[in-house]
């Protein structure tokens, strides 16, 4: 048995800080290496803020910000950015609309002023709206080809219902199809109202403040992000399934938990490291190495402003559905029944530290992570503080959090009918599934 080395990751240096005239906080971290700059503007909102009947609005708006803004048409903006060989994009996630810029340092003075134009003066040209909406509709349809996506959609729709995290950021076809310019204008006017944060990492140009807020530009009102309560998950345990003529059965077993800012999220992160990070992880060893049940197995646990999902995923040959379901359920049950051993916790900690270091390799990784953390209303040093706090968590604490937050998971399945039935039988007979209703059989 090997010992676990306690490696120390040097803390992330403090950034230079200032505020844009309208209130948006800016953090700048200078870094050596290649002469490049990465910027992330994290604007609270995202698909969780899509109003009822307008699911897909945030992503549609995100796609349109670079299709004409300020003085530049969409083509002119693309000519400028691509002509320099750089990358400027905007995408919506569940909690935010995020503008990402990655460029050679020499190009930054030309490109940084575009951030202001995108958030304040998007054209929302009807012709471009029609194109972008059509592309999103096509993507939604194509995603149905992936059985993982189908099982994922089913599970999130069950865990979060019609609420904010219940749909893919791309939206819902019938509602997306009805989104028009007036809706997008409303969405654009809201940008920044719930908080925003801008992070720049790399080699920034001189006169940064002036570039980010040109003298003649209107003031963008965007307040610093607060740790606002996000979407709650309320679902009771259930089995949801989708029939598909596939080789494998996809199984997702999961629950909605707590926001990143909740103190218990750190315990969940360590449980995720224990269960699903690396080839020595519990699920990998138990399901893949010991049973040969899967190629791909792990834990999906993205950080969210609201009740973050915590999901085991596995895909296994249809004819092994019974064994796969049994083993997956028993791994979840194990989490509830017994605390981690001291050596398991030490290994999970080492992985947590390792993953943190691996996430600080590029300017883009750092900008992305820090903008998200600030956007959640947490401090710049959140990650380093978490690394320190993690060292003082013990197995009993992790176990208590698991019992508190993971006691009632739901199971989502996608695969051929026989495999679905076999899995449903195992679920119905298992303590986790007994007495849970079945929903949404298709």
């Amino acid at each position, binding site marked *: 048995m*090997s010992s*676990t*080395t306690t*490696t120390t990751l040097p803390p992330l240096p403090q950034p230079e800080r200032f505020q844009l005239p309208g209130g948006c906080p800016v953090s700048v971290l200078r870094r*050596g*290496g*290649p*002469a*490049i700059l990465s910027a992330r503007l994290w604007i609270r909102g995202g698909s969780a803020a899509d109003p009822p009947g307008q699911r897909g609005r945030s992503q549609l708006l995100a796609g349109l910000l670079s299709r004409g803004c300020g003085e*530049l048409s*969409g083509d002119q903006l*693309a000519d400028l950015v*691509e*002509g*320099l*060989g750089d990358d400027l994009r905007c995408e919506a996630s569940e909690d935010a609309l995020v503008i990402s810029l990655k*460029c*050679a*340092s*020499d190009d930054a003075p030309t490109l940084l002023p575009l951030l202001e134009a995108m958030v304040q003066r998007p054209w929302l040209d009807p012709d471009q709206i029609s*194109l972008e909406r*059509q592309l999103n509709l*096509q*993507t939604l349809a*194509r995603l*149905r*080809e*992936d*059985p993982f996506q189908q099982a994922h959609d089913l599970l999130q729709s069950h865990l979060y219902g019609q609420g904010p995290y219940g749909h893919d950021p791309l939206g819902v076809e019938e509602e997306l199809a009805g989104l028009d310019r007036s809706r997008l204008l409303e969405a654009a006017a809201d940008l920044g109202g719930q908080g925003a944060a801008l992070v720049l990492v790399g080699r920034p140009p001189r006169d940064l403040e002036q570039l980010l807020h040109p003298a003649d530009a209107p003031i963008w009102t965007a307040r610093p992000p607060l740790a606002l309560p996000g979407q709650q998950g309320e679902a009771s345990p259930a089995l949801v399934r989708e029939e*598909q*003529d*596939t080789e*494998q059965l996809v199984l997702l077993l999961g629950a909605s938990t707590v926001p990143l800012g909740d103190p218990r999220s750190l315990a969940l992160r360590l449980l995720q490291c224990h269960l699903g*990070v690396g*080839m*020595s992880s519990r699920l990998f*060893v138990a399901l893949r*190495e*010991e*049973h*040969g*049940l*899967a*190629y*791909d197995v792990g834990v999906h646990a993205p950080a969210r402003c609201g009740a973050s999902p915590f999901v085991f995923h596995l*895909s*296994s*040959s249809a004819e092994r559905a019974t064994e796969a379901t049994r083993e997956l359920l028993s791994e979840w049950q194990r989490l509830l029944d017994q605390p981690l051993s001291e050596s398991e916790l*030490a*290994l999970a900690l*080492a992985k947590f*530290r*390792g*993953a943190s*270091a*691996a996430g*600080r*390799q*590029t300017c*883009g990784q750092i900008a992305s992570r820090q903008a998200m953390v600030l956007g959640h209303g947490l401090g710049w040093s959140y990650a380093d503080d978490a690394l320190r706090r993690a060292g003082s968590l013990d197995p009993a604490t992790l176990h208590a959090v698991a019992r508190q937050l993971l006691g009632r998971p739901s199971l989502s399945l996608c695969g051929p009918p026989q495999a679905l039935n076999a899995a449903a039988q195992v679920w119905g007979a298992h303590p986790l599934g007994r007495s849970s209703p079945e929903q949404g059989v298709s």
Partner: protein
Amino acid sequence: MPQSFRPPLQAADSFEDPRLLRLPNGVEVVSLNQEQAPLVCLDFWCRAGSAGEGPDQAGMAHFLEHMVFKGSERLEAGEFDRRVESLGGSSNAATGFDDVHFHVLVPPEGVAEALDLLLDLVLKPRLDPGDFQMERQVVLEELAQSEDQPEEVAFQRLLSLACPQHPYGRPILGDRSALKAQNPERMAAFHRNSYRPRRCSLALAGAIDGLVLDDLLAGSALADLEPVPSSALPGALPPPAGPDLALRPGVHELRLPRLEAARLLMAWQLPAAADLEAVAGADLLTSLMAEGRRSRLVQRLREDRRLVESVDLDLNVLEAGSLALLEAVCAPEQVAAVEEQIAEVWRELCCTPPAESELERARRLVANGYRFGLESASSVAGLIGHQCLWGRLQPLRHPLELLQRWSVERLGAELLPLLAPERACRLLALPA
């Protein structure tokens, strides 16, 4: 906004060059220190891709890559992962047509142990029969998972149609019957033949300032490899496995269940990896045609005519002949129009050479893609390890300089003709 012409090399780019160390047995080790890097990447490369498989070995290279992680003479199954991950490290591997590589990312203080573990694991795999049976199940699951993605099925079919007589036409994962027929002894023989000096390289990149490589490698499994007698392989490095590629043009159709959108897939043959200058030109041409909203194909097919959800043209640089692979995703009823417009875009480029600014745009996209890739230890180790494996180690700035050697006229004369529609193997995949 006016745009001044500047070469893609910027004054602020200061690249250290990789350092090469040749061990007494002929194995080459290449390294590069990166300031700012918090971690070190160790990357072991070997010319043991699927193209080197014999007739009854389909899937062997990839299956072996899996089996390597099941332990060595010295390491129990799972011990490597546990120890590397206890160091705060992570590891993975990938098998391609031409080569395979195994990489570990660790904090600097874990390098000595991780290097020792990695080399032992890769060079002395245990290939235990019980593990072999179990891991075959995992590989079969991997195969099933890829078969459930209709797009992957379509791409695999395209390659088999385009390269019918060549290993590139066979799936890297192999097929069920071949996998079921394999045994540990044959795998051991495959390993013995492939994992030898001059067929493998090692790269280290990241926070390696202060590491003394000679000391780290002395007595390692890598230094212990039996040298290959010079009579067996006279001259330079051994040639790549498999014959030269001769892509077979054609027009094919496939109906796939569970496909939601049609795919038009096209493959063209381009110059092989060894021709660095031509590869740089091919990179420019494919970027000019399909990278970014203002590239020729994206502009025409997606933005103007609105025929596709997406169109991509990827350059796959390969030893026996590179492949340009195009994928257009569209509604089934648009396929004919999409195909016509692709041909039209090509004809226009032939008739009217693009403006210098359009080439400069491509040059910058390629140069920045490369520059951005030099940030992480893993991508640098991958780059220099792969170059070293194939005897093509070069200064980091060299690829940027090669981009300058291509003019609009030269691209039009030498490379554009290779992308003619009639030279493509075309597969139309439609929902069943």
